[in-house]
């Protein structure tokens, strides 16, 4: 539901980098988004297509890399990946303990972009 303000921020950052690098056309943008985020890839692209009309980023393809949710076992410190539906009931693959601490999976990051 909050894809629109997120997409506005993406476009603003992309256009800033496009200007400082004398870009004529942005071909693609590589995003890294944590799996804990509820963003819908399709809607980010649709909003982007709409907002970027008339800019050098018009027509750019958003390549969204979903970053895994990582947690750390509170007993043995092993880090392991978790999926959203399992988050309430995690078991450490190494020692079998259930208590864990969230490490990452909330990323909202623009890594790079392909331009001409």
């Amino acid at each position, binding site marked *: *539901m909050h894809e629109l303000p*997120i997409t506005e921020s993406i476009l603003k950052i992309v256009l800033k980098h496009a200007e400082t690098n004398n*870009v004529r056309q942005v071909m693609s943008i590589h995003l890294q988004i944590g799996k804990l985020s509820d963003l819908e890839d399709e809607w980010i692209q649709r909003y982007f297509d709409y907002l970027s009309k008339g800019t050098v980023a018009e027509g750019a393809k958003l390549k969204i890399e979903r970053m895994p949710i990582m947690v750390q076992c509170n007993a043995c410190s092993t880090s392991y990946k978790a999926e959203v539906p399992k*988050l309430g009931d*995690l078991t450490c693959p190494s020692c079998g303990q259930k*208590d864990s601490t969230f490490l990452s999976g909330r990323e909202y990051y623009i890594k790079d972009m392909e331009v001409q």
Partner: protein
Amino acid sequence: MGEVRLIEVKEEILADNIKVAAEVRERLRKTKTMLLNLMSSPGSGKTSLILQTVANLKDSLRLSVIEADIDSTVDAEKVAARGIPAIQLRTGGFCHLDATMVTQGIDALAVNDLDLVIIENVGNLVCPAEFDTGAHKNVMILSVPEGDDKPLKYPLMFSICDLLLVNKIDYLSLSDFDMPALRKRVLALNPRIIILEVSCKTGSGIEDWINWLKKEVNAFKRMK
């Protein structure tokens, strides 16, 4: 067509909001005004909790409320009727408050003379979790009729909060809500979270909430 180049961007998409949120936190740290962001689904009892809180604390703390609503002033009117300054922010269709909107609310309040500002965020368990408002404490309400499975559906919200209020416990006997299962799910996401069971209707558990809030405001005031 020219050659394709790769530009390293390496920027946080929400960098602007993160920066404004940090400014809000710092500004209120100087005035010793604790900012508390209250989040929940629609109808789980945010406004009722705020009214209970106002009734309990208005003689001992100087507090004010920033209400966020997509397009109404109903909540601010209810709070203002209790003699507490309230600012209504209309988000104009946005599903959450961001730090810039909160700044507008704070600008409209005399924060120098306040101990506590409570933000009543837009009723929604998804978007408000993603946007730092600049609050010093994040609190959420889950009401019994919503079900004990919500941590599985909205893990981010449960993972960012300092305190969870399970409201409407007067409905427990009528429902299959599994409190131990809820606690286990929430603590798996966020081992540091404090969970309190309350009913804004009967007043059960409200004292625990008020004590927690007083303790936090006092600790905040003592921080250098």
